[in-house]
């Protein structure tokens, strides 16, 4: 009972602080409030685990997870390299470049566009991770099969966005290019590709999360004895929950960092677009 009172007290205190802060003006409270909220959740988690004596095979405390991360950095790094760098990143680069290339290729044929786009939209909504067992059979247990799953997962969202982007120019702008006597490729390079960038980055950002999901889930179907998905399944068998949470923390960090990196490149590349101007 006292434990519950303490937890509620912490929650109410933090919430009052946040309510007060969010009434204030300026950019500092805006940054501070989410941080306080996150820290409160972590504190409550830690306190609840300790006060109620929750077994670490059900829910480990944040401090246990932190200790686990600190103790197993080499393993986590090896898993990260295997899953993220070899599986997700390779697949992401291959899938996205293939999608961009196909989008440019079918750009000249309205017939193909009208045929491929509905199919692409349809496939983008399907549970494509299910293709993982097939890829594991074809390409073996190592990172190649994971990269193959990632290629298929990121291909369609990027394709659909890139095709939409290539249509994003105004007739007026294209007319201007033809009064300059610009060839098809000149128009493409100087007008239509830059105009397609905001759309393309939209697809690229969606694809970052998909890439990581694909690489991890594909490892559930078979993997060498390294990798984030492998570690998660292996530690489940041993009820090593702190290690699983550590892997999830790494995956979350990697996912946000990957997304952030693409968003940063977008900011640099499409600085002229209204959505990037303040």
């Amino acid at each position, binding site marked *: 009972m006292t434990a519950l009172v303490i937890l509620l007290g912490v929650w109410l205190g933090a919430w009052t602080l946040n309510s007060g802060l969010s009434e204030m003006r300026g950019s500092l409270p805006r940054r501070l409030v989410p941080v*306080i909220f996150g820290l409160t959740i972590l504190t409550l988690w830690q306190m609840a685990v300790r006060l109620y004596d929750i077994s670490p095979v*059900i829910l480990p405390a944040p401090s246990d997870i932190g200790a686990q991360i600190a103790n197993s950095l080499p393993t986590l790094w090896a898993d990260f390299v295997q899953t993220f760098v070899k599986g997700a990143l390779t697949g992401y680069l291959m899938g996205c470049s293939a999608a961009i290339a196909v989008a440019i290729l079918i750009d000249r044929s309205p017939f193909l566009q009208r045929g491929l786009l509905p*199919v692409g939209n349809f496939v983008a909504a399907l*549970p494509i991770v299910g293709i993982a067992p097939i890829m594991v059979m074809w390409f073996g247990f190592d990172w190649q099969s994971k990269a193959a799953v990632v290629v298929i997962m990121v291909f369609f969202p990027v394709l659909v966005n890139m095709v939409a982007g290539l249509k994003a120019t105004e007739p007026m702008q294209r007319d201007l290019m033809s009064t300059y006597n610009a060839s098809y490729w000149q128009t493409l390079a100087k007008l239509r590709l830059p105009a397609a960038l905001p759309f393309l980055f939209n697809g690229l950002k969606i694809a970052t999360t998909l890439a990581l999901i694909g690489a991890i889930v594909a490892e559930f*179907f*078979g993997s060498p004895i390294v990798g984030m998905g492998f570690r998660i*399944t292996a530690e489940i068998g041993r009820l090593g929950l702190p290690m*699983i949470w550590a892997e999830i923390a790494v995956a979350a960090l990697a996912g946000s960092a990957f997304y952030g990196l693409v968003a940063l490149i977008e900011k640099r590349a499409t600085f002229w677009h209204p959505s990037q101007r303040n």
Partner: protein
Amino acid sequence: MRSLGPVLVVLAAICALWYLAAIWMNAAWVNDQAAREGREVFLVDLVTETLMQERPVLPAPHQVAKGLYDGVFGQAVTSKRSLVYHGWVTLSATLLGFAIGSAAGILLAVGIVYNRAMDLSVMPWAIASQTIPILAIAPMIIVVLNSLGITGIVPKAIISAYLSFFPVVVGMVKGLRSPDAMQLDQMRTWNASGMQTLGKLRLPASMPYLFASLKVGVAASLVGTIVGELPTGAVAGLGSRLLSGSYYGQTIQIWAALFAAALLAASLVALIGGLERVTLKRMGLAR
């Protein structure tokens, strides 16, 4: 309907490529068999034999179609080999989770729009959570809940609720904020209370956004359920069909389960799309 022709052509091209790929990828096995028996393989034999293997590297479209047909119509629906049975196991968990997840998402979105502290505290995390491979925790949730004695449909539903929750929150917040200042001022001149503004302006205005995010959410829910079926060791559900197929090299079973899952996803999204059209039409929002 203008694009029906091109779509059919593209689908036919995919089918043709698939047949060619099947012949090419399954040829090694046929050649091996023939070399062992000391007979020569002609092109006709190669084609017929590559397309009729028991466990092909790549099953041909008609084999997948037959697997799907057998799984759906060839068994009693209660049979463990029936795709209807496994599909229902997956579908029920997906629907339960989707209902919980989207209801919770709508409630949280209302809270975020009406409470500034909640907006500033929760919204950044809700957006950040979309960049995280949440699916990775699915096996852990299943196993932990199993060890607590909670089995069956609930753990899978929790995962699928979790996956549909965040898209709905983010889309619904955008939708509830879509009325412009002029419309909100109008409500104020009518002396409308917060509840009235919500019921008569914000909620109706958010419908297009809600349906868009529901479509994303239901697809995510289904993926969540399928992945949630993996770690329990292939008991029931489309995910377990995938896993047991990959254990025993039953490629046709994998492809049939995959297509069943695709059909399920497509019909769920189409169902919400239909609801969207009807609702928006009755509200006069149809474009």
